[in-house]
Protein backbone atom coordinates (compact mmCIF):
# COMPACT_ATOMS: atom_id res chain seq x y z
CA UNK A 1 0.00 0.00 0.00
CA UNK A 2 1.35 3.42 -0.96
CA UNK A 3 2.30 6.04 1.64
CA UNK A 4 1.87 9.75 1.03
CA UNK A 5 5.63 10.35 0.93
CA UNK A 6 5.93 7.83 -1.94
CA UNK A 7 4.41 10.54 -4.15
CA UNK A 8 7.19 13.09 -3.50
CA UNK A 9 9.36 11.96 -6.46
CA UNK A 10 6.34 12.55 -8.72
CA UNK A 11 4.64 15.71 -7.42
CA UNK A 12 7.44 17.25 -5.39
CA UNK A 13 8.05 17.76 -1.70
CA UNK A 14 6.13 21.07 -1.55
CA UNK A 15 2.88 19.49 -2.78
CA UNK A 16 3.01 16.81 -0.11
CA UNK A 17 3.95 19.44 2.48
CA UNK A 18 0.80 21.38 1.56
CA UNK A 19 -1.32 18.27 2.09
CA UNK A 20 0.25 17.82 5.51
CA UNK A 21 -0.43 21.47 6.39
CA UNK A 22 -4.10 21.02 5.47
CA UNK A 23 -4.53 17.65 7.14
CA UNK A 24 -3.08 19.01 10.35
CA UNK A 25 -6.01 21.44 10.51
CA UNK A 26 -8.47 18.57 10.41
CA UNK A 27 -7.07 16.83 13.46
CA UNK A 28 -9.93 16.04 15.81
CA UNK A 29 -12.56 15.90 13.08
CA UNK A 30 -13.82 12.57 11.79
CA UNK A 31 -15.05 11.70 8.29
CA UNK A 32 -17.44 8.87 7.50
CA UNK A 33 -17.75 7.78 3.85
CA UNK A 34 -20.90 5.87 2.93
CA UNK A 35 -21.59 4.22 -0.42
CA UNK A 36 -23.35 1.12 -1.71
CA UNK A 37 -20.54 -1.27 -2.64
CA UNK A 38 -17.24 -2.30 -1.11
CA UNK A 39 -15.81 -3.80 -4.29
CA UNK A 40 -15.99 -3.01 -7.98
CA UNK A 41 -16.87 0.27 -9.56
CA UNK A 42 -15.06 3.58 -9.60
CA UNK A 43 -16.20 4.81 -6.19
CA UNK A 44 -14.91 1.77 -4.33
CA UNK A 45 -11.66 1.93 -6.31
CA UNK A 46 -11.09 5.57 -5.33
CA UNK A 47 -11.96 4.99 -1.66
CA UNK A 48 -9.71 1.92 -1.47
CA UNK A 49 -6.70 3.91 -2.61
CA UNK A 50 -7.53 7.18 -0.92
CA UNK A 51 -8.46 6.14 2.61
CA UNK A 52 -5.03 4.74 3.54
CA UNK A 53 -3.44 7.98 2.28
CA UNK A 54 -5.84 10.12 4.33
CA UNK A 55 -5.05 7.98 7.34
CA UNK A 56 -1.33 8.37 6.64
CA UNK A 57 -1.91 12.14 6.70
CA UNK A 58 -3.55 11.80 10.12
CA UNK A 59 -7.17 12.28 9.01
CA UNK A 60 -9.64 10.05 10.80
CA UNK A 61 -11.62 8.62 7.88
CA UNK A 62 -13.78 5.52 7.81
CA UNK A 63 -15.93 3.85 5.19
CA UNK A 64 -19.29 2.12 5.58
CA UNK A 65 -21.47 0.40 3.02
CA UNK A 66 -25.28 0.33 2.99
CA UNK A 67 -27.11 -2.96 2.67
CA UNK A 68 -29.88 -3.64 0.19
CA UNK A 69 -31.62 -6.57 -1.46
CA UNK A 70 -32.03 -7.30 -5.17
CA UNK A 71 -35.21 -5.24 -5.36
CA UNK A 72 -33.42 -2.21 -3.92
CA UNK A 73 -30.50 -2.48 -6.34
CA UNK A 74 -32.88 -2.99 -9.30
CA UNK A 75 -34.45 0.32 -8.35
CA UNK A 76 -31.10 2.06 -7.94
CA UNK A 77 -29.98 0.70 -11.33
CA UNK A 78 -33.13 2.16 -12.90
CA UNK A 79 -32.44 5.42 -11.14
CA UNK A 80 -28.86 5.41 -12.42
CA UNK A 81 -30.08 4.96 -16.01
CA UNK A 82 -32.71 7.67 -15.58
CA UNK A 83 -30.08 10.10 -14.33
CA UNK A 84 -28.12 9.41 -17.49
CA UNK A 85 -31.16 10.59 -19.44
CA UNK A 86 -32.67 7.17 -20.29
CA UNK A 87 -36.51 7.03 -20.33
CA UNK A 88 -37.51 4.92 -17.33
CA UNK A 89 -40.83 4.41 -15.56
CA UNK A 90 -40.98 3.52 -11.89
CA UNK A 91 -43.61 1.13 -10.59
CA UNK A 92 -45.83 2.52 -7.86
CA UNK A 93 -44.13 2.24 -4.50
CA UNK A 94 -40.62 1.73 -5.88
CA UNK A 95 -39.30 5.10 -4.81
CA UNK A 96 -40.95 4.71 -1.39
CA UNK A 97 -39.27 1.33 -1.03
CA UNK A 98 -35.93 2.92 -1.99
CA UNK A 99 -36.36 5.52 0.78
CA UNK A 100 -37.44 2.87 3.27
CA UNK A 101 -34.28 0.76 2.72
CA UNK A 102 -32.22 3.91 3.29
CA UNK A 103 -34.04 4.53 6.59
CA UNK A 104 -33.32 0.99 7.78
CA UNK A 105 -29.65 1.54 6.97
CA UNK A 106 -29.62 4.85 8.83
CA UNK A 107 -30.59 2.96 11.99
CA UNK A 108 -27.77 0.45 11.57
CA UNK A 109 -24.98 2.76 10.36
CA UNK A 110 -25.41 5.43 12.99
CA UNK A 111 -23.87 8.23 10.90
CA UNK A 112 -22.38 10.42 13.58
CA UNK A 113 -19.00 11.57 12.30
CA UNK A 114 -18.24 15.31 12.10
CA UNK A 115 -18.44 15.02 8.32
CA UNK A 116 -20.74 12.45 6.72
CA UNK A 117 -19.72 11.96 3.11
CA UNK A 118 -22.40 10.21 1.06
CA UNK A 119 -21.45 8.86 -2.37
CA UNK A 120 -23.96 8.68 -5.24
CA UNK A 121 -27.76 8.37 -5.15
CA UNK A 122 -28.10 4.93 -3.53
CA UNK A 123 -27.66 6.14 0.10
CA UNK A 124 -28.94 9.69 -0.52
CA UNK A 125 -31.95 9.45 1.84
CA UNK A 126 -29.64 8.85 4.82
CA UNK A 127 -29.51 12.65 5.11
CA UNK A 128 -32.83 12.42 6.96
CA UNK A 129 -30.73 11.28 9.92
CA UNK A 130 -28.86 14.59 9.89
CA UNK A 131 -29.01 16.16 13.32
CA UNK A 132 -27.73 19.53 14.47
CA UNK A 133 -24.64 19.88 16.62
CA UNK A 134 -22.42 21.23 13.87
CA UNK A 135 -22.18 17.94 11.98
CA UNK A 136 -21.85 18.44 8.25
CA UNK A 137 -23.27 16.32 5.45
CA UNK A 138 -21.92 16.26 1.89
CA UNK A 139 -23.39 14.51 -1.13
CA UNK A 140 -20.84 13.40 -3.71
CA UNK A 141 -22.25 12.70 -7.17
CA UNK A 142 -19.92 10.55 -9.27
CA UNK A 143 -22.22 10.16 -12.27
CA UNK A 144 -23.06 12.16 -15.38
CA UNK A 145 -25.78 14.59 -14.40
CA UNK A 146 -26.06 16.51 -17.68
CA UNK A 147 -29.63 15.52 -18.58
CA UNK A 148 -31.27 13.80 -15.62
CA UNK A 149 -34.76 12.38 -16.07
CA UNK A 150 -37.17 14.97 -14.64
CA UNK A 151 -39.15 12.66 -12.35
CA UNK A 152 -36.03 11.26 -10.71
CA UNK A 153 -34.55 14.72 -10.41
CA UNK A 154 -37.71 15.96 -8.68
CA UNK A 155 -37.58 13.03 -6.29
CA UNK A 156 -33.88 13.46 -5.49
CA UNK A 157 -33.47 17.23 -5.36
CA UNK A 158 -35.17 17.80 -1.96
CA UNK A 159 -32.78 15.24 -0.48
CA UNK A 160 -29.79 16.84 -2.22
CA UNK A 161 -30.78 20.24 -0.89
CA UNK A 162 -30.87 18.87 2.67
CA UNK A 163 -27.09 18.43 2.53
CA UNK A 164 -24.63 21.18 3.45
CA UNK A 165 -22.80 20.86 0.14
CA UNK A 166 -22.76 18.80 -3.04
CA UNK A 167 -19.83 17.69 -5.17
CA UNK A 168 -19.82 17.08 -8.92
CA UNK A 169 -17.11 15.76 -11.24
CA UNK A 170 -17.56 18.15 -14.18
CA UNK A 171 -18.99 21.64 -14.67
CA UNK A 172 -21.65 20.32 -17.07
CA UNK A 173 -23.15 18.26 -14.22
CA UNK A 174 -23.88 21.34 -12.15
CA UNK A 175 -27.56 22.31 -11.70
CA UNK A 176 -29.32 25.25 -10.12
CA UNK A 177 -29.37 24.17 -6.46
CA UNK A 178 -29.93 25.96 -3.17
CA UNK A 179 -26.73 24.51 -1.67
CA UNK A 180 -23.04 24.96 -2.46
CA UNK A 181 -21.76 22.94 -5.40
CA UNK A 182 -18.11 22.02 -5.47
CA UNK A 183 -16.18 20.77 -8.49
CA UNK A 184 -13.91 17.83 -7.70
CA UNK A 185 -12.73 15.78 -10.62
CA UNK A 186 -11.71 12.17 -10.19
CA UNK A 187 -8.06 11.24 -10.46
CA UNK A 188 -5.60 8.55 -11.40
CA UNK A 189 -3.02 7.00 -9.14
CA UNK A 190 0.45 7.22 -10.69
CA UNK A 191 1.67 4.37 -8.46
CA UNK A 192 -1.05 1.86 -9.39
CA UNK A 193 -0.36 -1.01 -11.80
CA UNK A 194 -2.36 0.77 -14.48
CA UNK A 195 -0.16 3.87 -14.37
CA UNK A 196 3.22 3.09 -12.83
CA UNK A 197 6.34 3.24 -14.98
CA UNK A 198 7.03 0.05 -16.89
CA UNK A 199 10.36 -1.27 -18.13
CA UNK A 200 10.78 -1.45 -21.90
CA UNK A 201 10.94 -5.25 -21.71
CA UNK A 202 7.56 -5.40 -19.93
CA UNK A 203 5.98 -3.32 -22.69
CA UNK A 204 7.64 -5.43 -25.40
CA UNK A 205 6.45 -8.64 -23.76
CA UNK A 206 2.81 -7.51 -23.64
CA UNK A 207 2.92 -6.33 -27.27
CA UNK A 208 4.52 -9.59 -28.37
CA UNK A 209 1.85 -11.60 -26.55
CA UNK A 210 -0.81 -9.86 -28.64
CA UNK A 211 1.19 -10.08 -31.88
CA UNK A 212 1.66 -6.31 -32.28
CA UNK A 213 4.42 -4.94 -34.52
CA UNK A 214 6.39 -2.32 -32.54
CA UNK A 215 7.99 -1.04 -35.71
CA UNK A 216 4.76 0.45 -37.08
CA UNK A 217 2.44 3.17 -35.73
CA UNK A 218 -0.12 1.97 -33.24
CA UNK A 219 -3.49 3.67 -32.64
CA UNK A 220 -5.29 2.51 -29.50
CA UNK A 221 -8.60 2.90 -27.76
CA UNK A 222 -8.98 1.36 -24.31
CA UNK A 223 -12.54 1.03 -23.09
CA UNK A 224 -15.18 -1.56 -22.39
CA UNK A 225 -17.18 -2.79 -25.40
CA UNK A 226 -20.12 -0.45 -25.20
CA UNK A 227 -21.99 1.46 -27.94
CA UNK A 228 -21.40 4.68 -26.02
CA UNK A 229 -17.64 4.26 -26.54
CA UNK A 230 -18.26 4.03 -30.31
CA UNK A 231 -15.73 1.27 -31.10
CA UNK A 232 -17.21 0.84 -34.60
CA UNK A 233 -16.72 4.56 -35.19
CA UNK A 234 -13.08 4.11 -34.17
CA UNK A 235 -12.62 1.39 -36.79
CA UNK A 236 -14.22 3.60 -39.45
CA UNK A 237 -11.87 6.46 -38.59
CA UNK A 238 -8.90 4.07 -38.71
CA UNK A 239 -9.99 2.80 -42.15
CA UNK A 240 -10.07 6.36 -43.48
CA UNK A 241 -6.51 6.82 -42.24
CA UNK A 242 -5.38 3.44 -43.55
CA UNK A 243 -6.20 4.53 -47.12
CA UNK A 244 -3.20 6.86 -46.88
CA UNK A 245 -0.96 5.62 -44.11
CA UNK A 246 0.29 2.38 -42.66
CA UNK A 247 -0.80 1.77 -39.07
CA UNK A 248 -2.29 -0.74 -36.65
CA UNK A 249 -5.37 -0.38 -34.46
CA UNK A 250 -5.93 -1.85 -31.01
CA UNK A 251 -9.35 -1.88 -29.39
CA UNK A 252 -8.89 -3.27 -25.92
CA UNK A 253 -11.15 -3.49 -22.94
CA UNK A 254 -13.37 -5.64 -20.84
CA UNK A 255 -17.07 -5.83 -20.33
CA UNK A 256 -19.46 -7.85 -18.25
CA UNK A 257 -19.93 -11.24 -19.91
CA UNK A 258 -23.51 -11.38 -18.67
CA UNK A 259 -24.27 -8.08 -20.39
CA UNK A 260 -26.15 -9.04 -23.58
CA UNK A 261 -25.51 -5.61 -25.08
CA UNK A 262 -21.76 -5.89 -24.46
CA UNK A 263 -21.66 -9.21 -26.31
CA UNK A 264 -23.53 -7.68 -29.26
CA UNK A 265 -21.13 -4.74 -29.41
CA UNK A 266 -18.14 -7.09 -29.38
CA UNK A 267 -19.72 -9.08 -32.22
CA UNK A 268 -20.29 -5.88 -34.26
CA UNK A 269 -16.71 -4.80 -33.65
CA UNK A 270 -15.29 -8.17 -34.72
CA UNK A 271 -17.41 -8.10 -37.88
CA UNK A 272 -16.20 -4.61 -38.76
CA UNK A 273 -12.58 -5.64 -38.08
CA UNK A 274 -12.73 -8.99 -39.88
CA UNK A 275 -10.94 -8.15 -43.13
CA UNK A 276 -7.98 -6.28 -41.68
CA UNK A 277 -5.20 -8.21 -39.91
CA UNK A 278 -3.86 -4.92 -38.51
CA UNK A 279 -6.93 -4.46 -36.29
CA UNK A 280 -6.54 -6.14 -32.90
CA UNK A 281 -9.72 -6.59 -30.88
CA UNK A 282 -8.62 -7.59 -27.37
CA UNK A 283 -11.21 -8.65 -24.83
CA UNK A 284 -9.28 -8.39 -21.58
CA UNK A 285 -10.19 -10.15 -18.32
CA UNK A 286 -10.63 -8.09 -15.11
CA UNK A 287 -7.29 -7.25 -13.48
CA UNK A 288 -5.45 -6.66 -16.79
CA UNK A 289 -4.03 -3.41 -15.45
CA UNK A 290 -0.42 -4.03 -16.47
CA UNK A 291 -1.51 -5.05 -19.98
CA UNK A 292 -3.55 -1.85 -20.35
CA UNK A 293 -0.63 0.20 -19.05
CA UNK A 294 1.72 -1.44 -21.58
CA UNK A 295 -0.68 -0.99 -24.51
CA UNK A 296 -1.07 2.69 -23.71
CA UNK A 297 2.69 3.12 -23.44
CA UNK A 298 3.29 1.29 -26.73
CA UNK A 299 0.79 3.49 -28.60
CA UNK A 300 1.64 6.25 -31.05
CA UNK A 301 -1.77 7.89 -30.55
CA UNK A 302 -4.54 7.10 -28.07
CA UNK A 303 -8.21 7.66 -28.93
CA UNK A 304 -11.30 8.04 -26.76
CA UNK A 305 -14.08 8.48 -29.27
CA UNK A 306 -16.95 8.22 -26.78
CA UNK A 307 -20.46 9.41 -27.62
CA UNK A 308 -21.19 9.96 -23.94
CA UNK A 309 -18.79 9.84 -21.01
CA UNK A 310 -19.01 10.19 -17.23
CA UNK A 311 -15.51 11.51 -16.86
CA UNK A 312 -13.34 9.37 -19.11
CA UNK A 313 -10.29 8.75 -16.93
CA UNK A 314 -8.69 6.60 -19.66
CA UNK A 315 -7.87 9.98 -21.25
CA UNK A 316 -5.89 11.01 -18.16
CA UNK A 317 -4.20 7.61 -18.07
CA UNK A 318 -2.92 7.99 -21.63
CA UNK A 319 -1.92 11.64 -21.14
CA UNK A 320 -0.01 10.72 -18.00
CA UNK A 321 2.04 8.39 -20.22
CA UNK A 322 2.88 11.35 -22.45
CA UNK A 323 0.71 10.15 -25.33
CA UNK A 324 -1.05 12.49 -27.76
CA UNK A 325 -4.77 11.88 -27.25
CA UNK A 326 -7.62 12.50 -29.69
CA UNK A 327 -10.95 12.37 -27.88
CA UNK A 328 -14.57 13.44 -28.19
CA UNK A 329 -15.63 16.66 -26.50
CA UNK A 330 -18.10 14.94 -24.14
CA UNK A 331 -18.55 14.57 -20.34
CA UNK A 332 -15.37 15.34 -18.43
CA UNK A 333 -13.05 15.02 -21.45
CA UNK A 334 -12.85 18.79 -22.21
CA UNK A 335 -11.62 19.27 -18.64
CA UNK A 336 -8.72 16.97 -19.38
CA UNK A 337 -7.88 18.25 -22.85
CA UNK A 338 -7.48 21.87 -23.94
CA UNK A 339 -7.92 21.51 -27.71
CA UNK A 340 -4.63 21.78 -29.62
CA UNK A 341 -2.72 22.57 -26.39
CA UNK A 342 -2.73 19.30 -24.48
CA UNK A 343 -4.55 17.02 -26.92
CA UNK A 344 -7.22 17.14 -29.60
CA UNK A 345 -11.00 17.30 -29.25
CA UNK A 346 -13.14 16.03 -32.12
CA UNK A 347 -16.84 15.63 -32.92
CA UNK A 348 -16.98 13.07 -35.74
CA UNK A 349 -15.42 10.02 -37.39
CA UNK A 350 -14.01 12.18 -40.21
CA UNK A 351 -12.58 14.70 -37.73
CA UNK A 352 -10.94 11.90 -35.78
CA UNK A 353 -9.40 10.46 -38.97
CA UNK A 354 -8.17 13.91 -40.03
CA UNK A 355 -6.38 14.43 -36.70
CA UNK A 356 -4.88 10.93 -36.65
CA UNK A 357 -3.27 11.70 -40.02
CA UNK A 358 -2.09 15.10 -38.81
CA UNK A 359 -0.43 13.65 -35.72
CA UNK A 360 1.14 10.73 -37.58
CA UNK A 361 2.59 13.17 -40.12
CA UNK A 362 3.72 15.70 -37.52
CA UNK A 363 5.39 13.65 -34.79
CA UNK A 364 7.06 16.74 -33.31
CA UNK A 365 3.68 18.42 -32.73
CA UNK A 366 2.26 15.13 -31.42
CA UNK A 367 5.17 14.89 -29.00
CA UNK A 368 4.52 18.41 -27.71
CA UNK A 369 0.84 17.64 -27.17
CA UNK A 370 1.88 14.57 -25.22
CA UNK A 371 4.32 16.53 -23.09
CA UNK A 372 1.78 19.24 -22.32
CA UNK A 373 -0.80 16.56 -21.61
CA UNK A 374 1.43 14.87 -19.06
CA UNK A 375 2.10 18.17 -17.30
CA UNK A 376 -1.63 18.93 -17.26
CA UNK A 377 -2.41 15.58 -15.64
CA UNK A 378 0.43 16.01 -13.17
CA UNK A 379 -0.95 19.37 -12.07
CA UNK A 380 -4.64 18.49 -12.07
CA UNK A 381 -5.61 14.83 -12.20
CA UNK A 382 -3.38 12.85 -9.86
CA UNK A 383 -4.62 11.40 -6.59
CA UNK A 384 -2.67 14.03 -4.60
CA UNK A 385 -4.82 16.81 -6.13
CA UNK A 386 -7.92 14.76 -5.35
CA UNK A 387 -6.84 14.46 -1.70
CA UNK A 388 -6.10 18.19 -1.57
CA UNK A 389 -9.63 18.94 -2.85
CA UNK A 390 -11.23 16.63 -0.30
CA UNK A 391 -9.25 18.20 2.54
CA UNK A 392 -10.25 21.70 1.36
CA UNK A 393 -13.87 20.59 1.02
CA UNK A 394 -13.88 19.26 4.59
CA UNK A 395 -12.30 22.47 5.90
CA UNK A 396 -14.67 24.65 3.88
CA UNK A 397 -17.70 23.15 5.64
CA UNK A 398 -16.74 25.02 8.78
CA UNK A 399 -15.91 28.36 7.13
CA UNK A 400 -18.13 31.01 5.57
CA UNK A 401 -15.75 33.46 3.85
CA UNK A 402 -14.45 33.41 0.27
CA UNK A 403 -10.89 33.82 1.48
CA UNK A 404 -10.05 31.69 4.48
CA UNK A 405 -6.87 32.31 6.45
CA UNK A 406 -5.89 29.09 8.17
Amino acid sequence: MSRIRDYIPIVGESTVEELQLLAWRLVGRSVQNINSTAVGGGVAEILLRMLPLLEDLGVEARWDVIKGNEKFFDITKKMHNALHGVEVTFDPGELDYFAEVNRQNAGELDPEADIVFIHDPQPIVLVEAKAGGGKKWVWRCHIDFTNPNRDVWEFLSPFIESYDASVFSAPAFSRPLAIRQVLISPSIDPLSDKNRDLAGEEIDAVCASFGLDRGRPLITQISRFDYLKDPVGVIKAYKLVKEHMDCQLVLAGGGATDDPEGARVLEDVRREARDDPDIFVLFLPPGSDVEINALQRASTIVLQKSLKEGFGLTVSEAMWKGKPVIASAVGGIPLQIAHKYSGVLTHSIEGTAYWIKQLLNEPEYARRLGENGREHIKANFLITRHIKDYLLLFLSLFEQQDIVYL
Partner: protein
Amino acid sequence: MTVFKFQTRLNLVELLGRRACTVAELLDGLREVPGMSIYYHTHRFLQQHHYLSPEPPNDFAFWVTGSLGLDALGERLASVDTVRFRSIRALRDKLAGILAEFLDGGRARNTESQEGEEFHFMSARTFVLPTPYEASNLAEFAEVLKKVSINSIYFHVFEARLRLEKAENDFANWFEGIGEDRLAREISRLDPYTMTLEGLRKNLIQMVSRHVED
Protein backbone atom coordinates in the same frame (compact mmCIF):
# COMPACT_ATOMS: atom_id res chain seq x y z
CA MET B 1 15.29 43.64 9.38
CA THR B 2 11.76 42.35 8.82
CA VAL B 3 11.29 38.72 8.01
CA PHE B 4 9.35 37.67 4.90
CA LYS B 5 7.09 34.76 5.80
CA PHE B 6 6.02 32.75 2.79
CA GLN B 7 2.40 31.79 2.65
CA THR B 8 0.66 29.52 0.18
CA ARG B 9 -2.84 29.39 -1.14
CA LEU B 10 -5.02 26.53 -2.31
CA ASN B 11 -8.31 26.82 -4.17
CA LEU B 12 -11.50 24.81 -3.92
CA VAL B 13 -13.46 25.28 -7.15
CA GLU B 14 -17.19 25.89 -6.88
CA LEU B 15 -19.89 25.58 -9.53
CA LEU B 16 -22.47 28.32 -9.81
CA GLY B 17 -25.08 26.22 -11.67
CA ARG B 18 -25.19 28.89 -14.38
CA ARG B 19 -24.29 28.45 -18.04
CA ALA B 20 -24.13 30.48 -21.24
CA CYS B 21 -24.65 29.38 -24.85
CA THR B 22 -24.43 32.78 -26.57
CA VAL B 23 -22.47 36.01 -26.24
CA ALA B 24 -25.54 37.70 -24.73
CA GLU B 25 -25.81 35.02 -22.03
CA LEU B 26 -22.10 35.29 -21.39
CA LEU B 27 -22.48 39.03 -20.90
CA ASP B 28 -25.44 38.61 -18.52
CA GLY B 29 -23.49 36.13 -16.46
CA LEU B 30 -20.33 38.20 -16.51
CA ARG B 31 -22.25 41.16 -15.09
CA GLU B 32 -24.01 39.19 -12.37
CA VAL B 33 -21.66 36.52 -11.01
CA PRO B 34 -19.60 37.24 -7.89
CA GLY B 35 -16.24 38.95 -8.38
CA MET B 36 -14.50 35.76 -7.37
CA SER B 37 -15.91 34.10 -10.49
CA ILE B 38 -14.38 36.78 -12.74
CA TYR B 39 -11.07 36.31 -10.96
CA TYR B 40 -11.30 32.54 -11.39
CA HIS B 41 -12.05 32.70 -15.13
CA THR B 42 -9.26 35.18 -15.83
CA HIS B 43 -6.67 33.19 -13.89
CA ARG B 44 -7.68 29.55 -14.25
CA PHE B 45 -5.48 28.83 -17.24
CA LEU B 46 -2.51 30.31 -15.50
CA GLN B 47 -2.96 27.92 -12.60
CA GLN B 48 -4.10 24.80 -14.40
CA HIS B 49 -1.91 25.05 -17.49
CA HIS B 50 1.08 26.75 -15.95
CA TYR B 51 3.47 24.76 -18.12
CA LEU B 52 2.11 26.25 -21.37
CA SER B 53 3.66 29.26 -22.96
CA PRO B 54 1.98 31.32 -24.11
CA GLU B 55 -1.07 30.38 -22.05
CA PRO B 56 -4.53 31.01 -23.44
CA PRO B 57 -5.27 34.24 -21.55
CA ASN B 58 -8.72 33.77 -20.06
CA ASP B 59 -11.69 31.41 -20.19
CA PHE B 60 -13.96 33.97 -21.85
CA ALA B 61 -11.60 34.46 -24.80
CA PHE B 62 -10.92 30.74 -25.06
CA TRP B 63 -14.64 29.89 -25.15
CA VAL B 64 -15.69 32.63 -27.55
CA THR B 65 -12.96 31.53 -29.98
CA GLY B 66 -13.09 27.77 -29.51
CA SER B 67 -16.80 27.13 -28.99
CA LEU B 68 -18.49 30.03 -30.79
CA GLY B 69 -15.88 30.45 -33.52
CA LEU B 70 -15.85 34.24 -33.05
CA ASP B 71 -12.14 34.79 -33.58
CA ALA B 72 -12.12 38.58 -33.67
CA LEU B 73 -14.12 38.89 -30.46
CA GLY B 74 -11.94 36.22 -28.89
CA GLU B 75 -8.85 38.19 -29.79
CA ARG B 76 -10.24 41.36 -28.22
CA LEU B 77 -11.02 39.52 -24.99
CA ALA B 78 -7.61 37.84 -25.07
CA SER B 79 -5.81 41.13 -25.44
CA VAL B 80 -7.24 42.61 -22.23
CA ASP B 81 -4.09 43.37 -20.28
CA THR B 82 -4.96 41.81 -16.92
CA VAL B 83 -1.75 43.05 -15.30
CA ARG B 84 -2.93 46.67 -15.62
CA PHE B 85 -6.08 46.20 -13.57
CA ARG B 86 -6.06 47.00 -9.89
CA SER B 87 -9.51 45.66 -9.04
CA ILE B 88 -11.77 42.85 -10.17
CA ARG B 89 -14.54 45.38 -10.68
CA ALA B 90 -12.52 47.28 -13.26
CA LEU B 91 -11.55 44.04 -15.02
CA ARG B 92 -15.19 42.92 -15.10
CA ASP B 93 -16.27 46.29 -16.57
CA LYS B 94 -13.64 46.06 -19.28
CA LEU B 95 -14.65 42.54 -20.34
CA ALA B 96 -18.37 43.36 -20.19
CA GLY B 97 -17.75 46.50 -22.26
CA ILE B 98 -16.15 44.47 -25.04
CA LEU B 99 -19.06 42.01 -25.14
CA ALA B 100 -21.67 44.78 -25.03
CA GLU B 101 -20.00 46.63 -27.87
CA PHE B 102 -19.92 43.45 -29.92
CA LEU B 103 -23.64 42.87 -29.35
CA ASP B 104 -24.44 46.49 -30.18
CA GLY B 105 -22.79 45.92 -33.52
CA GLY B 106 -25.48 43.29 -34.15
CA ARG B 107 -23.00 40.71 -35.37
CA ALA B 108 -23.35 36.99 -34.71
CA ARG B 109 -25.86 37.70 -31.98
CA ASN B 110 -27.42 34.29 -32.39
CA THR B 111 -24.30 32.18 -32.62
CA GLU B 112 -24.83 29.33 -30.16
CA SER B 113 -22.36 26.86 -28.76
CA GLN B 114 -22.84 23.20 -29.59
CA GLU B 115 -24.42 20.96 -26.99
CA GLY B 116 -21.79 20.04 -24.43
CA GLU B 117 -19.70 23.15 -25.10
CA GLU B 118 -21.64 25.66 -23.04
CA PHE B 119 -19.75 28.10 -20.84
CA HIS B 120 -20.10 27.14 -17.17
CA PHE B 121 -19.62 29.87 -14.62
CA MET B 122 -17.45 28.80 -11.73
CA SER B 123 -15.90 30.36 -8.72
CA ALA B 124 -13.44 29.39 -6.02
CA ARG B 125 -12.90 29.53 -2.33
CA THR B 126 -9.33 30.34 -1.39
CA PHE B 127 -7.44 29.00 1.60
CA VAL B 128 -4.32 30.89 2.63
CA LEU B 129 -1.93 29.13 4.96
CA PRO B 130 1.55 29.73 6.30
CA THR B 131 4.44 27.61 5.05
CA PRO B 132 7.52 26.81 7.14
CA TYR B 133 9.66 29.01 4.86
CA GLU B 134 10.90 32.51 5.70
CA ALA B 135 13.69 34.83 4.64
CA SER B 136 15.38 37.71 6.37
CA ASN B 137 17.76 38.75 3.57
CA LEU B 138 18.04 38.49 -0.19
CA ALA B 139 20.28 35.44 -0.16
CA GLU B 140 17.79 33.50 1.97
CA PHE B 141 14.96 34.80 -0.19
CA ALA B 142 16.56 33.42 -3.35
CA GLU B 143 17.08 30.04 -1.66
CA VAL B 144 13.46 29.81 -0.53
CA LEU B 145 12.21 30.73 -4.02
CA LYS B 146 13.86 27.53 -5.23
CA LYS B 147 11.99 25.32 -2.75
CA VAL B 148 8.62 26.87 -2.09
CA SER B 149 5.56 25.56 -3.97
CA ILE B 150 4.41 27.24 -7.14
CA ASN B 151 1.15 28.03 -5.30
CA SER B 152 3.07 30.19 -2.86
CA ILE B 153 4.72 32.21 -5.63
CA TYR B 154 1.34 32.51 -7.31
CA PHE B 155 -0.22 33.83 -4.11
CA HIS B 156 2.36 36.51 -3.46
CA VAL B 157 2.58 37.72 -7.06
CA PHE B 158 -0.96 37.47 -8.44
CA GLU B 159 -3.45 37.03 -5.66
CA ALA B 160 -2.03 39.73 -3.39
CA ARG B 161 -2.25 42.43 -6.03
CA LEU B 162 -5.49 41.96 -7.95
CA ARG B 163 -7.65 39.94 -5.61
CA LEU B 164 -6.56 41.42 -2.31
CA GLU B 165 -6.22 44.83 -4.04
CA LYS B 166 -2.78 45.66 -2.70
CA ALA B 167 -0.93 48.33 -4.70
CA GLU B 168 2.00 46.03 -5.39
CA ASN B 169 2.81 42.35 -5.23
CA ASP B 170 4.08 41.08 -1.87
CA PHE B 171 7.64 40.53 -3.04
CA ALA B 172 8.04 44.06 -4.41
CA ASN B 173 6.58 45.45 -1.17
CA TRP B 174 9.05 43.59 0.97
CA PHE B 175 12.05 44.50 -1.17
CA GLU B 176 11.05 48.15 -0.90
CA GLY B 177 10.69 47.77 2.86
CA ILE B 178 14.27 46.51 3.21
CA GLY B 179 15.68 49.31 1.06
CA GLU B 180 16.06 47.29 -2.17
CA ASP B 181 14.15 49.85 -4.21
CA ARG B 182 15.75 48.99 -7.53
CA LEU B 183 14.89 45.30 -7.16
CA ALA B 184 11.35 46.23 -6.08
CA ARG B 185 10.93 48.31 -9.23
CA GLU B 186 12.28 45.52 -11.44
CA ILE B 187 9.87 43.01 -9.92
CA SER B 188 6.85 45.27 -10.25
CA ARG B 189 7.65 45.96 -13.90
CA LEU B 190 7.36 42.22 -14.72
CA ASP B 191 4.27 41.11 -16.62
CA PRO B 192 3.77 37.76 -14.93
CA TYR B 193 0.80 36.96 -17.18
CA THR B 194 3.03 36.38 -20.17
CA MET B 195 5.24 33.63 -18.78
CA THR B 196 4.75 30.19 -17.29
CA LEU B 197 4.75 29.99 -13.50
CA GLU B 198 8.01 28.05 -13.51
CA GLY B 199 9.39 30.68 -15.90
CA LEU B 200 8.31 33.32 -13.40
CA ARG B 201 10.06 31.43 -10.59
CA LYS B 202 13.25 31.31 -12.64
CA ASN B 203 13.07 35.03 -13.47
CA LEU B 204 12.52 35.95 -9.83
CA ILE B 205 15.43 33.81 -8.67
CA GLN B 206 17.73 35.40 -11.28
CA MET B 207 16.69 38.94 -10.38
CA VAL B 208 17.11 38.41 -6.65
CA SER B 209 20.43 36.55 -7.08
CA ARG B 210 21.82 39.39 -9.19
CA HIS B 211 21.13 41.82 -6.37
CA VAL B 212 22.72 39.47 -3.83
CA GLU B 213 25.92 39.54 -5.89
CA ASP B 214 25.77 43.36 -6.16
